[in-house]
């Protein structure tokens, strides 16, 4: 008897109308994400803000930032004045706060990108190695992690900045070093649950080397989670930077960040409350939007929905 009566089988399958567009899991996730209106809206908002930050110099031109700077005594500390195109008012140096906010966003977003990337790379490596190794190695690595988490951020930041000076990139790296621990934990958990799955055992049974298993089977299944947590780490990173900026430990003049701006505004809050409104609003909206994007991504990648 022939194997499967293959022609009959093919006929039968074709007749059943198996019309399937081949979609990878990533494509399915994207489709699911796009169905989530809140997440899509939030993505658009973030995209707009990125655009605004990129084109900050344009705003500068629009409001005549430079010119006003010459007459800063005249323009300093002015309340929001729509006719003069100072939508958020000016600060004590006569600089338009709206423009400052745009520039501030640039720095904040740059921090987000660099620091989050640092956190990603270190976190994923640490977590994956710890999860795959298991046993004593894993235990030791996790206890080191616990130790690191218990150290206060401010202390580390102050010490580091005192030692290395207020270099902008040092700031980024410090923040990244603080945030990677969460990523490490999350990735480790994911790797541990993957380690026991059938397809990993199948790969072992096929004779794949441990490196091969890591690269071909574990990493692709971990990137989803990594991306989701990236979008949740980014708001934290921005907040941390703002906090450092508020303490005066952040970026130096003439660069500014949202945190620095809010700090300056806080100093003058009794007499010139408007100085915090602009940057504060942008910060809040940015963080909220990023959180929604992160939520949407997490839902999109959730395997239970498959």
């Amino acid at each position, binding site marked *: 008897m022939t194997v499967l*009566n293959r022609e*009959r089988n093919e*006929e*039968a399958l074709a*007749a*059943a*109308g198996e*019309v399937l567009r081949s979609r990878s899991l990533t494509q399915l996730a994207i489709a699911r994400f796009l169905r989530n209106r809140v997440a899509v809206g939030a993505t658009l908002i973030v995209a707009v803000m990125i655009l605004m930050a990129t084109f900050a110099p344009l705003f500068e031109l629009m409001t005549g930032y430079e010119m006003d700077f010459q007459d800063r005594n005249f323009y300093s500390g002015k309340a929001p004045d729509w006719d003069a195109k100072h939508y958020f008012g000016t600060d004590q140096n006569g600089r338009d706060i709206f423009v400052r906010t745009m520039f501030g966003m640039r720095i904040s977003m740059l921090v987000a990108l660099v620091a989050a990337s640092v956190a990603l790379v270190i976190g994923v490596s640490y977590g994956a190695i710890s999860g795959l190794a298991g046993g004593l190695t894993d235990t030791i690595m996790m206890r080191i992690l616990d130790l690191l988490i218990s150290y206060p951020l401010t202390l580390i930041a102050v010490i580091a900045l005192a030692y290395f000076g207020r270099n902008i990139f040092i700031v980024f790296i410090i923040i990244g070093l603080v945030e990677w621990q969460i990523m490490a934990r999350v990735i480790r958990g994911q790797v541990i649950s993957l380690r026991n799955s059938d397809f990993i055992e199948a790969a072992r049974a096929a004779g794949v080397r441990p490196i091969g298993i890591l690269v071909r089977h574990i990493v692709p299944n971990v990137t989803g989670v990594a991306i989701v947590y990236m979008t949740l780490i980014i708001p934290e990173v921005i907040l941390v930077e703002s906090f450092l900026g508020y303490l005066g430990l952040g970026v130096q003049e003439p660069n500014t960040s949202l945190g620095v701006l809010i700090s300056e505004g806080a100093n003058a809050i009794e007499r010139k409350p408007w100085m915090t409104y602009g940057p504060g609003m942008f910060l809040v909206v940015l963080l909220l939007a990023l959180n929604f994007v992160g939520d949407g991504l997490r839902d999109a990648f959730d395997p239970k929905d498959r």
Partner: protein
Amino acid sequence: MSTSQTPILSIKDLFIEFETPDGAVKAVNGINLDLFKGEVLGIVGESGSGKSQSWMATLGLLAENATTSGEVTFDGENLLTLPPKALNPIRGNRIAMVFQDPMTSLNPYLTIETQMVEALRIHNKRMSKPDARKRCVEMLDRVAIPAADKRLKQFPHELSGGMRQRVMIALALLNDPEVLIADEPTTALDVTIQAEILDILLDLQRERGMAVVFITHDLGVVAEICSRVCVMYAGRLAEIGPVQDVFTDARHPYTLSLLKATPRAAQSQAAQSDDALYAIPGAPPNMRMPPPGCPFEPRCACADAHCREQVPALEPLQGSETRLKACFREGSSAALLEALVHER
């Protein structure tokens, strides 16, 4: 195994559709079925046949994205249109259900006693706790759980799979239901444990005269305990009739193919190890786009163009009141078998 003329539960023109992001899945496409008092009705089907969904619908247990139409008549009421308030006194009380996986059906955080007593007192609000407890012990004894007293205080994970399933059955029978729906209750169990559970079910059924609906994909189990069998394919009924008749004289190509594809030990003790099983070519259809005609047609060795265009209605066999089939082919079981064999 007696049957009376009026059915205790009647399903008419039942359609179930599920809304999914990729389109509507037509899980059940027009079922008409009667359940009589005191009988054990077997529902046989593979995955995608709609066998579980049809009976989940009677108790209102379908997922939120399901739309149903048709009637499920029980005691003069259409269960499908009853609001939850009216449905609750029936659920677990007059119609009870036992599911496939006892581990996920029992709450792992509550003791057996808590869960059983809850099931009792929801429907018997005036029952005192000691009385309820006594009844639970009785029920556990009845399903042959040793040291029932002690077992009550235990948690589900402390019991073996077979015991948990017995607890599920006891739970279902606490309120003396008129109908028991068992959805693949022994599929996840070892064969020796399965045998014990089936014996218990049969004993209890005979003792209480309740109607049992036994949903399974295992033809052997149906042959062992059911009086009537109903074969489903792709959301439709293929064949209905008394078990012995249907299995020895199948009239629907799908039933026949299924019987031939079932490994032999389940058919009789004598078999050869070289015998190849009859493999039904192809696979069950995509329920998002069911074929316009008979759903089995793409895989049927006896099909012709007519089968592709029109859905055969479920009709009684010539000269029989108890047997129905949904197929355009007439002819004996042997003739169908010839066609199947020759197609290979």
